[in-house]
């Protein structure tokens, strides 16, 4: 029997047509595909909103890192409403304040600043994932790998 690794779900903003929402999703893709592909799983906020069973099960089973594009904080609220635990929440605007040199612009296609901001955010989330997994108790053998 192989030891199941505990994973983190990444839930970005679903705001289509918003620069900061696009940054949140690009950062989420980078985390789940490149930065920490073995430890993270992308969950679409829209699926949580629709009550998708798989999405809700993933959120219920694993700590979540949420990335919100505006102060409505839909991703964070929806994870909590779905019975999940938010291990770390990010707001793109707060991240931008730390990286003023990366001014995001564009919607369908981010500018270079937007890509750089998403990359910086992805690296921060990668570190947060490590921290969260390190702080938690070791995963139980045979635990469901959501």
């Amino acid at each position, binding site marked *: 029997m192989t030891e199941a690794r505990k994973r983190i779900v990444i839930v970005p903003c679903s705001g289509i047509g918003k*620069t*900061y929402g696009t940054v949140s999703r690009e950062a989420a893709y980078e985390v789940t595909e490149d930065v920490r592909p073995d430890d993270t799983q992308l969950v679409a906020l829209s699926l949580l909103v629709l009550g998708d069973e798989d999405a809700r099960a993933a959120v219920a089973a694993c700590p979540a890192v949420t990335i919100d594009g*505006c*102060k409505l904080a839909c991703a964070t609220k929806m994870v909590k409403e779905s019975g999940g635990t938010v291990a770390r929440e990010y707001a793109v*605007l707060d991240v*931008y*304040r730390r990286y*003023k040199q990366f001014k995001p612009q564009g919607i369908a296609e981010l500018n270079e600043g937007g890509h750089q901001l998403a990359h910086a955010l992805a690296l921060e989330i990668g570190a947060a994932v490590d921290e969260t997994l390190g702080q938690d108790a070791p995963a139980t053998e045979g635990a469901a790998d959501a």
Partner: protein
Amino acid sequence: MPEYLETIIDKFTFRVAADRLYTRQGAWARLEENGRVRVGVSDFLQQSSGDVAFAEVRAEGTELDTGDEIASIETIKVNVSLGAPVPGTVVAANPALETGPEIINSDPYGEGWLAEIAPADWEAGRTELLDAQAYFDVMKAEAEARQG
């Protein structure tokens, strides 16, 4: 007059503080007891501009004519160049803006003020400004027009 004039348009509530004067752009000016004029942005301007990322006030000692940029505000939607409501010299910037510029959104008429000016001539300058009721009418018309 009540403390605030208020209107609800669609799902948004816009307030205009009654104790100060305004430019049509949405800068407010209020004469303080120490003779300085405190400057900020109206509730309508902050709501329509979006969440503030950064706010930068002109350096202390800068002399401004009416309409000269007193502060630049970068939000998630737009860059706002705020014109000085009255001529004078910048004597203070709100230090809270350095660490928490979002205070402009959360408390535009209070802790979210931007700058203080030593006015060149307040009594003359104030005649060019709108009182709260006049600004309320301008703001309401603009908000309704944007609503379509």
